[in-house]
């Protein structure tokens, strides 16, 4: 990147012209290490454990491990054998539900007989999340070259009667999509314009976090967590356009887990400043039983979980935010106003849908009008669900 500055003054501010460019890295070696990712909680199972190997950077394939033995052992010596379900994943037995106040450890025995185990950890109850709320904020965009406005969603958790101090958060979100010109009608076999059986212009899209979000109440008065940021949505993102729902799940984890997640995430977001931290491999709480020097990646998390869901309408959000534009351009002039006779023809060539039908009486002398818009402006069913999720509340 050679950023041309329009401002002579900025020539001198070369410090701030420091820039980040893509770097084509040619990996020169590859290290194959077992990765164990598992968790139990006081929420209903089944719980899963995935066994993977690291894979070379340019590939995306991970070798399958289908015949390992996986079990969880509680503090009383009870074991709960997992069964292989699908690619790399093993599931807990029916009826196994972890309980607060008990300790759990994960064991894995590979087909070659090598055994791995985790530290035994106590399951702590998670305090409740009091509120989820959004505030207007400006944060750097993805390229970090400028700030964008948006809504930062925070949680408050009054944690006074809990011992838990370290938390991992996950969110699941859903939002409603209303196309600018929702399809309302179709052309029936007899060329008449009839209403659609199912609305395809209003849909629901779901998503989930794939980033490690962790926090601690250490150092806070009353062990509480206030204004903890969980999710930022910029004003260019569709989520904020109509109605948005977010579920935040709070996992009460131990200090070791907290440090592991923190280091892992710092590794994943290592760069871009003049004072980059030293990166390096981060090891969790899994160990090779017979060979203490063998590297094992991953973590077995034991956590109490609490969760809360909230809904937000665009109108309820902070005034500063601009309403996100619809992802597709939908000018009226790009649509077609035609007569019912020609509708089928236009639908055929544009691939669009009918969003309006003005039926005039034959006496008026005026022809009936059919409004047609492109598919993207009338129909969202090809990329989102038309049925609202179970939990959806209008």
């Amino acid at each position, binding site marked *: 990147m050679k950023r041309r500055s329009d401002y002579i003054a900025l020539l001198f501010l070369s410090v701030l012209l420091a820039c980040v460019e893509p770097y084509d890295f040619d990996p020169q070696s590859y290290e194959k290490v077992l990765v164990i990712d598992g968790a139990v909680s006081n929420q209903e199972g089944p719980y899963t454990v995935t066994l993977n190997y690291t894979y070379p950077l340019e590939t995306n394939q991970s070798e399958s491990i289908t015949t390992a033995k996986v079990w969880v052992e509680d503090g009383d010596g009870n074991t709960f054998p997992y069964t292989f379900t699908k690619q790399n994943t093993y599931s807990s037995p029916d009826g196994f539900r972890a309980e607060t106040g008990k300790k759990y450890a994960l064991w894995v025995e590979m087909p070659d007989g090598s055994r791995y185990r985790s530290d035994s950890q106590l399951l702590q109850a998670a305090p409740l999340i009091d509120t989820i709320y959004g505030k207007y904020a400006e944060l750097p965009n993805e390229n970090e070259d400028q700030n964008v406005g948006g809504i930062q969603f925070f949680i408050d958790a009054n944690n006074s009667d809990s011992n838990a101090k370290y938390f991992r958060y996950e969110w699941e979100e859903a939002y409603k999509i209303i196309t600018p010109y929702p399809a309302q009608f179709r052309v029936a076999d007899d060329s008449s314009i009839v209403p659609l059986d199912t609305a395809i212009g209003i849909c629901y899209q779901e998503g989930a976090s*794939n980033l490690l979000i962790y926090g601690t109440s250490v150092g806070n008065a009353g062990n509480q967590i206030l204004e903890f940021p969980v999710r930022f949505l910029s004003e260019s993102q569709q989520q904020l356009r109509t109605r948005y729902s977010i579920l935040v799940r709070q996992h009460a984890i131990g200090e070791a887990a907290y440090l592991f997640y923190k280091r892992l995430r710092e590794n994943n977001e290592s760069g871009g400043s003049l004072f980059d931290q030293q990166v390096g491999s981060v090891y969790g709480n899994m160990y090779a039983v017979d060979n203490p020097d063998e590297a094992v990646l991953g973590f077995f998390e034991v956590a109490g979980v609490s969760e809360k869901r909230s809904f937000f309408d665009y109108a309820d959000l902070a005034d500063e935010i601009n309403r996100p534009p619809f992802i597709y351009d939908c000018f009226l002039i790009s649509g077609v106003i035609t007569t019912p006779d020609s509708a089928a023809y236009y639908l055929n060539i544009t691939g669009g849908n009918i969003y309006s039908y003005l039926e005039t009486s034959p006496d008026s002398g005026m022809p009936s009008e059919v409004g047609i818009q492109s598919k993207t402006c009338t129909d969202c069913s090809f990329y989102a669900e038309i049925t609202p999720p179970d939990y959806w509340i209008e």
Partner: protein
Amino acid sequence: MNKLYSILFILVLVCPLGLLAQSSEPTITGIYNNTPATDVFASWEEQTSLQFFYQREWVDSLKVSGTFEQTLISEALKSIFSNSTLNFLIYENRVILTNNAVIVTETALITSGTKQPEEVETIRKGLVFGREYLNQTQDQSDLENFVFEIGNRTQLNSGTATATIAGYVKTQESDEPVAGALVYIQNPLKATTSDESGFYTINLPKGKHQLMIQYVGMKTTQRNVVLFSNGKLNVKMDVDVIALQEITIESDRDENVKDVQMGVNKIKIEEIKTVPIVLGESDILKIATTKAGVQTVGEGAAGFNVRGGKADQNLVLFNDAPVYNPSHFFGFFSVFNADAVSSMDLYKSGIPAKYGGRLSSIFSINSKEANKKEFHGQGGISPITSRLTLEIPLIEDKTSLLIGGRTTYSNWVLSRAKSASFRENKVSFFDVITRVDHEINDNNSLTFSSYISNDKFRLNSDTLFSFSDFGFHNINGAMAWNHRFGNNMDGKFSATYARYGYELTYDESLPNAFTQDFDTNETSIKGDLEYYIGETHKFSFGASMKHYQINPGSKKPLGGESIILPEIVPEDQGLESAIYFSDKYEYNEQLSLYGGIRYVMFNALGPATVYNYEPVLPKNGDTRTDSSTYSAGNIIKTYHGPEWRFSARYALDNASSLKLGLSRTRQYIHTLSNSASLSPTDTWRLSGPNLKPQVADQVSLGYYRNFSRGTIEVSVEGYYKKLQNLVDFKTGSTFLLNQNVEQVILQGPGKSYGLEFSVNKSGRLNGWINYAYARTYIKLDGDFAEERVNEGQFFPTAYDKPHTVNLVANYKLTRRLSFSVNATYSTGRPVTVPVAAFNFKGAQNIHFSDRNAFRIPDYFRVDLGINLEGNHKIQKLAHSFWSLSIYNLTGRDNPFSVFFDVKNGEVVGSQLIVFGNPIPTLSYNFKF
């Protein structure tokens, strides 16, 4: 003049010819037995109307014995002075005693009465060099032809065949010391240079000499001396206005070959003009990085790596007080205002015994001493900064004040930028240097100096800073008393204070708003003495005591809504005491030796609570067994040991020599940093039960040769360093507000070695080129997996850059126009890179290689500078010059770092480029 002649005339008539029996001459009476001469004179003053004039030290040791009965005063004086160098003159009602002044009077006799050949004859007999006096002048205003008598005349033929002249070289106009002036005689060639306070000492055969004094930018001057015995001679030098054209005399031309010291770079502020500047600010520390053996990890990296040393292993001294963070603006500017600085000595090896406390190097920077006669000023304006330095005489010839300030107005420029991310950043800094010099008398002077700097920034998009405002400051003061004990001994007694601290503020979220700070305070007293046993032999000795007080971090809630609890990491306190002795001895023309020993004791002091850990387990919260509590002032832990410093020079011939150096250094204060370059949030911690002192042993060998009468200096130096207890850390650890840093610190041995070639050239085309091969490794091999890095093997440190080439060249096209170029090449520094990816909790994650297993691309940069000076009329109100520089002329993208992020679940490699474009800067500088 007339008066002098009349005195002389009377002298001619009266004194030497014995025409004394004038009836008017008073007589005295008295019986004396070993009576001090002063008492005798006092009694004679009472008896007669005479007044005695003399200098007390001449007669201190003179005792009078004898009986005088109505003796003529002249007879009496003759008899008591018969065995001394004293002479006398009775003039009107005064008795003027002179020491060896017989020569002056007799010279006068010759000049005023050359027609008396008989007298001339007499005088010649009494003098060794009578002939010279016939051509010399007694005119005190013509010092170059005046004859200076040094020492006691009677000792000419007694005792040793040589004697020592000592004194100060100062400037005529401002009475400032001239450091590094060359004082020599031509036949036989003997030379010495003046030290920082202008003091010199030279040992010469007794007799007549023409002493030459030279210094860059000063008129070469000479003194005719007759050396009888040890004595003093102060010299004032005039500024050479013609020297603007070209300076060919260098006092230290042969120093690289002749001096026993090796591994030293002496950088004068004049050299700054020869290097293209960046962002309109000359920077003496940047010049250091163009010398062999000094590296930085990249643009904008604060701190230096000297011969494979970590950035915290350099002691930066400003007027003898340490500066903990010598950078502004993340290291883009040094904190020293070039206008107020006079010189810098950088010791890479063979660190003199008087310095200690850091492993790798000493950067000793001295500010200017202000002119004591005239008001002067100097300043500059560039697009980012402006600066002004004033030299103010407070009491003429006695006291002067130097004050220099610098500030940036980049905020002003920033606020006019239209891009959001620029506008959100705020950066500002200032620094102020003050210095007061007071000369009490020839033997005593006082210096007070202070340095204050302050930086503030608010960075919007920097990913590391989770806080919004950051500020750091240096506060620094020094007080020194220079005292001369007789002709052979110099002493300096000083007290210094240094503080470095930072504070950061987070106020983006009111419930979580806080301020956090760190500071380190160092107070020290010391005495340094130098004893000259002739010009070939010098003892230095002294003692120092230093108290450290460190607040490693404290966090406080900010505002009423904040739920943050106050948190304080307990203070570190320590006492570092040292004594040293060294001897520099020029055995003969070939061999010169320096040997020194420094014995240092460090006490970690309470109050403190020290945790103990299971001895066979890694240190962490679970293996903590118990704790010991120490109350205030109690010693927690003591470390002590000798540090030897040895160097030797063997001259192969007149223009080449071999040098050897051996040294040990210890360090008791360490930065905890987990980034490659020095970061502003690094904290300093003291050694204690869980943090051992770092120790370095260095052996170095060098060959030095000068060509073309010293205008080309060539040197090759090799070194090997063995290091112990280097401080490192477990991956992913944090040091900010860490209550138990011992749980994340790792210590291990290191080794560094290298070879440095340099060529320096002076003249119209001047500059230097050097190549350094340097490697540096560390080994972290603890007893547990978490304490091992790279399987416990030696691995290259983050600042290991094997090959470095620097070229600095300056060509003076005309008197007013000069061009300079600077080119730098170095191997890319090591980084840790991904070797694999893995899936965890729904996203890709990075599995890293061994630490520092790969390197970023090589670094190459060319800078160009053009200096245009205003006209050179001496009478101009102000001298000025324009300076245009282009940094990174080729616009090469030199990565500062290469890093890997997970973006949208994918591993993405990126590189950070600091100056990817050519950066032109125009600045205006003036001087009056």
